[in-house]
């Protein structure tokens, strides 16, 4: 279902370009993400989707072009500053703290909201700051891991690990959430659960979602807008419906998965 979306954009990239030597991973990508929408970035492997995410999050610095998050230029910001602007991100290759408990995984992420003075105070207790623990619980609730919070993260199932990765990104209530293949490496029967989790996040907290996905059903059920990339360049943009009717996209991308 198409939902009514407000018009102001929370994030924009202008002619974003990144080269690795000769190879152009991302070329002149103009992306405009509207608040509260779910914007899917699709494309075959090596289309430069993850590179685009890395550029947005500041892991990589662009060769040219700029990134704006809610009007502020973040092109040269280090990752933690961009995160401080309310950009959360989950990873294609799972990135969690395997040897910590599920709760601690999320709590430590929430703790990053704490003032430096409290974070550096050697005589306070990590666990006496209850608000972070409560935030962590909320994040775990919303992705549906609350019952597993005491377990060490390493024992979780792949789908739960995906959810945990998402919860870590959600811990500090980001306004923009970048999900890099939330269903990647998840077994077929678990995929609905993960998609359900993302849906739940949208309903409960309604962050702006920027989504990389291959699974068509996931895209259909989640995304309002789609941007199709191929060899680093954007080849089509529009609402999910439009893109589905776009032949060019059909034969470039959907043709291969179908």
């Amino acid at each position: 279902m198409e939902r009514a979306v407000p018009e102001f954009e929370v994030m924009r990239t202008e002619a974003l370009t990144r080269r690795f030597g000769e190879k152009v991973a991302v070329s002149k990508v103009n992306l405009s993400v509207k608040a509260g929408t779910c914007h899917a970035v699709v494309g075959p492997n090596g289309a430069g989707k993850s590179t685009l995410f890395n550029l947005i999050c500041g892991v990589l610095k662009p060769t040219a072009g700029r990134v704006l998050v809610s009007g502020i230029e973040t092109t040269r910001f280090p990752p933690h500053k961009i995160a401080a602007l309310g950009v959360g991100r989950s990873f294609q290759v799972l990135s969690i703290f395997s040897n910590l408990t599920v709760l601690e995984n999320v709590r430590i992420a929430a703790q990053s909201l704490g003032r430096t003075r409290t974070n550096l105070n050697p005589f306070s207790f990590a666990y006496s700051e209850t608000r972070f623990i409560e935030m962590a619980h909320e994040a775990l609730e919303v992705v549906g891991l609350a019952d597993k919070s005491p377990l060490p993260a390493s024992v979780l199932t792949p789908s739960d690990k995906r959810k945990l990765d998402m919860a870590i990104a959600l811990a500090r209530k980001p306004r923009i959430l970048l999900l890099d293949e939330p269903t990647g490496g998840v077994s077929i029967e678990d995929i609905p659960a993960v998609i359900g989790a993302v849906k739940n996040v949208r309903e409960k907290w309604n962050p702006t979602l920027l989504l990389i996905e291959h699974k068509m059903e996931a895209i259909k059920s989640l995304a309002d807008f789609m941007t199709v990339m191929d060899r680093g360049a954007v080849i089509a943009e529009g609402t999910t419906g439009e893109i589905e009717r776009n032949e060019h996209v059909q034969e470039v991308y959907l043709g291969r998965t179908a």
Partner: protein
Amino acid sequence: MAGTTAAAVLSEFARSRWLLAAFVLMSLLPLVYPSLYWLTILCYLFTMGLFALSYDLVLGRTGVLSFGHAACFGLGAYAVYWVYLAGYPFWLAVATAMLLGAVTNVAMGTALRRVKGVYFAMFTLAFAEIIYLYLEKQTSITGGTGGVFSPRPDFLQNPALIFVFIGIVVLAAVFIACFLVFSYMRKGARVRGAVGLVLLACLVGYALYSLDSSVLSQLQAPINAFTVNAYLLSALLMFLSYYLVSRLSLSPLGAIMTAIRENGERMDMVGYDTFRYKLVIMAISGLFAGLSGAMLASLASFILTPDVMSATYTLNVLLYSILGGIGTLVGPVIGAFVVEFLHFNIGNIASFIGVPSIANWWMLIIGVFYVAVVLLLPYGIVGTAMMKGRRTLDALRKAVGGGESRA
């Protein structure tokens, strides 16, 4: 208000009662067993234990491999020498040592923004070696290869000081007694409380009993008084630092350290300036390294050579950590105890097991030791004990009646 602070203080003591017990036990040793030999060695063990502890903050807790730690240690040691011989008070010298250690470590840490992993290890190695080679040439301030005689503060040669320490120890003993009674009052922990009380009473009693004129009269020789006092002071500093560090690992910063070790990139992505936190940790670790260096210079060693800045000490502390168990604060300390204990007593042990000739094969022994530790104790003594021995320890606690004392 007062009530809550008192409660906080009490809970602090409750947390560290084992530490207190260990401290009391060690501090009563010179009374129970007044052997200059063992006191000298244990003083050195404590120093190295603290050094290993400071290294574990960096390597074990934060996962940063640094080969320059000896620079903080050695510069701390020499800072005491310089400041104290310049005529400033001892505490100021120690403070300077800690500061210098911290500054050195931070200076190395600044490279972390760009240099990572093995390259950072090599960078720190070079950094420390340059300092070492430079200062070894400055014969006027470091004594060159021959080194200098350690600065030994006068007040440590005063026999009266020992009673200050005994006062501290008695205080600690009293606190332990309180908690033993406390646990005795708790239903189910009776046996442990009673046993503990009796043991403590016997220990303190025997200590006081053995404090007779023969021991005291021997304290009039400055060297004897110094040895006893240096031992007690080093014990105090080591246990105090251990308490602080273990406290630190419960703090938010401790949690951050662990998370950085587990997954530094993700920490960046969730909004931590990991580089800055790493610098903070380098600074703290440098503080303690400098302190241990100060202990070496003024308490534990007889002479001070620039070698204390050389890679040898870094490699030793690496061995301590691996042997004891990386990341388990106490592990490196124990590792240091074990290695240095072997190092000093290899002669005794050799003659004890009837092969006195191996006393001169230290390098071979330590080498085989390295290999054996790495291959046989992959998680170190404490690591293995904490994984395998957790069950045993619980069983033990049940056996002595503390089974359900955990919340």
